[in-house]
């Protein structure tokens, strides 16, 4: 069933603070089909969390707002939905695993109560026993001993809290799961279990997932398609095969990302990160946003914003790969 579940078109999001206007997302296009896992990779501050928050309509009040574009989720335009609609949509249609496990848990409720509350909220189960049973089941699913459900968040380690957060997000079996770095706080064995669990869920319930992560290894293991984000834009988008194929065409930023990973098989003294930092989001450079750090910079990059070029569904936004320019 190749049907679009989430379609983000030309999304622009800004944060307005005392000192400045932060252009966090600048013209982002992305679709997620039913049952598909799309990875979103990019540097800190690229606007990944902001994109996810826009879909949840949870941007900070007054400060953050969508200035342009549309987000269609399961046929509903999120940018126009009322707050009451959103309450129904959140949890049932889409739920989010937040980046920061500590602040998304209530410090004065036991973790068992917090999972049960979500189940109550969406009236999934009738009797108390059923709810309790389900809570145990979910906890076991994320690898926590159910007998610890009576404890409070501060009694758990960072990774265990993250597992609780994952459990809460999965409790209602949403159609779309926005996972904002769900496994960064987990060790590799638990991470493997959680990813396995997510894959099972995907097969069983056809859950789609937007997986935001820094770990290219995780992306390689789980994602069908991958988007590389830079300064609020998607600079490269393709199937996992296209992105991970070393000898394919790539955006220079993608090449840089892959180059920064410490290699287990080789010994190096220093890592080679991409030079420089993300451009200041209050004052983005003209032309290609990556030109300030790009090793293949051309004069045109400083003035003209590159158009996306497609190659069998593989999108790259870079002047080097713009065919029209190449032929010139």
């Amino acid at each position: 069933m190749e049907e679009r579940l989430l379609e983000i078109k030309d999304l622009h999001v800004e944060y307005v603070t005392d000192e400045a206007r932060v252009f966090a997302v600048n013209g982002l296009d992305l679709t997620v089909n039913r049952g598909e896992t799309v990875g979103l990779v990019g540097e800190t501050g690229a606007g990944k969390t902001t994109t996810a928050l826009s879909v949840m309509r949870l941007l900070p009040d007054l400060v953050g707002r969508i200035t342009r574009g549309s987000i269609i989720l399961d046929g509903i335009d999120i940018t126009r939905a009322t707050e009451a609609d959103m309450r129904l949509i959140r949890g049932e249609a889409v739920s989010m695993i937040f980046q920061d496990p500590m602040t998304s848990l209530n410090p004065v409720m036991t973790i068992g109560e917090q999972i049960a509350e979500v189940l109550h909220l969406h009236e999934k189960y009738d009797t108390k026993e059923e709810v309790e049973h389900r809570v145990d089941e979910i906890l076991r699913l994320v690898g926590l001993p159910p007998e610890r459900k009576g404890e409070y968040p501060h009694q758990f380690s960072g990774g265990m809290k993250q597992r609780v957060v994952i459990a809460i997000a999965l409790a209602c079996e949403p159609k779309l799961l926005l996972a904002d770095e769900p496994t960064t706080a987990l060790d590799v064995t638990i991470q493997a279990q959680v990813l396995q669990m997510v894959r099972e869920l995907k097969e069983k319930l056809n859950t789609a997932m937007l997986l935001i992560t820094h770990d290219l290894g995780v992306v390689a293991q789980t994602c069908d398609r991958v988007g590389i984000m830079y300064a609020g834009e998607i600079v490269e988008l393709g199937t996992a095969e296209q992105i991970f194929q070393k000898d394919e065409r790539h955006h220079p930023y993608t090449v840089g990302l892959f180059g920064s990973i410490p290699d287990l098989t080789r010994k190096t003294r220093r890592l080679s990160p991409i030079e420089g930092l993300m451009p200041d989001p209050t004052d983005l450079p003209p032309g290609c946003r990556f030109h300030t750090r790009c090793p293949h910079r051309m004069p045109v990059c400083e003035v003209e914003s590159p158009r996306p070029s497609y190659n069998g569904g593989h999108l790259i936004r870079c002047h080097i790969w713009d065919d029209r320019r190449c032929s010139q």
Partner: protein
Amino acid sequence: MTEQATVNPSNPVKKRSQLKAIWFRYRKNKLAMFGLALFLSLVLVAASSGLFLDYDTQVIEQRMRERLQPPSSEHWFGTDQYGRDVFARVVWGTRISLFVGVFTVTIALTVGTLFGALAGYYGGTVDNVLMRIMDIFLAMPGTILAVAIVGALGPGLVNVLLAMAIARIPQFARIVRSAIISIRGQEFIEAAKACGTRDGRIIMRHILPNAIGPIVVQVTLHMATTILGVAGLSFIGLGIEAPTPEWGSMLSEAKEWMRYHPYLMVFPGVAIILSVLSLNLIGDGLRDALDPRMKN
């Protein structure tokens, strides 16, 4: 590799002091500024009332011939059942009522915060002992407690206020304690401990600023109830002695005449509402201004 290229290092950005930053955010909140203006005018009225009013002849002297007159150009707010000018009494009352509210809440806040902070921060036995004491106080209705305390200390304005303050301590202690418990486990507190910060500084600089929201709300709420509470005590003869113009007692005296002389109630009532309102607005504004996450 660093970001230095983006700024000129010889011209560093000016550091902004915290107070300035708070004022900057507070100033943006129109309602809060209105509240502040209102409160300052009340303070001004209280401070200057002695300059143009003579307490003995204008505020407490009874003139039975002029009793119960409706508002007129001579008596702006009318006169009461003893022929005293209501305007003069309301204005003079500002001094007393503001003092009552501020004094009581300050004491309750200071002591309550201290107890709550100790209980919440140290937990364990300290928490148990302090909070059980607070529970005993909480279990008794505030007024009865105050009556008991005034009974023990003897009547008089300061004793009444002390009684009111003591009755409110447990409520502040509770709020502060629960706020602190939810903050003390966070990592930035540990980071502070890791560089040898002493407990006092951790509480004052790291925990309380993060707990300010619920405390400020509590403060403004209690200001209002205190002013009314003193009136209640005055009514049963334990509060402010009879001729002293205090808004609460004026209000309760006016109750008898409500039917035919409603203005007697209206003016002290409006005064109470205005002062409570101003404090509420200030409180809300302050809460937001103190939280850097609430920009705009």
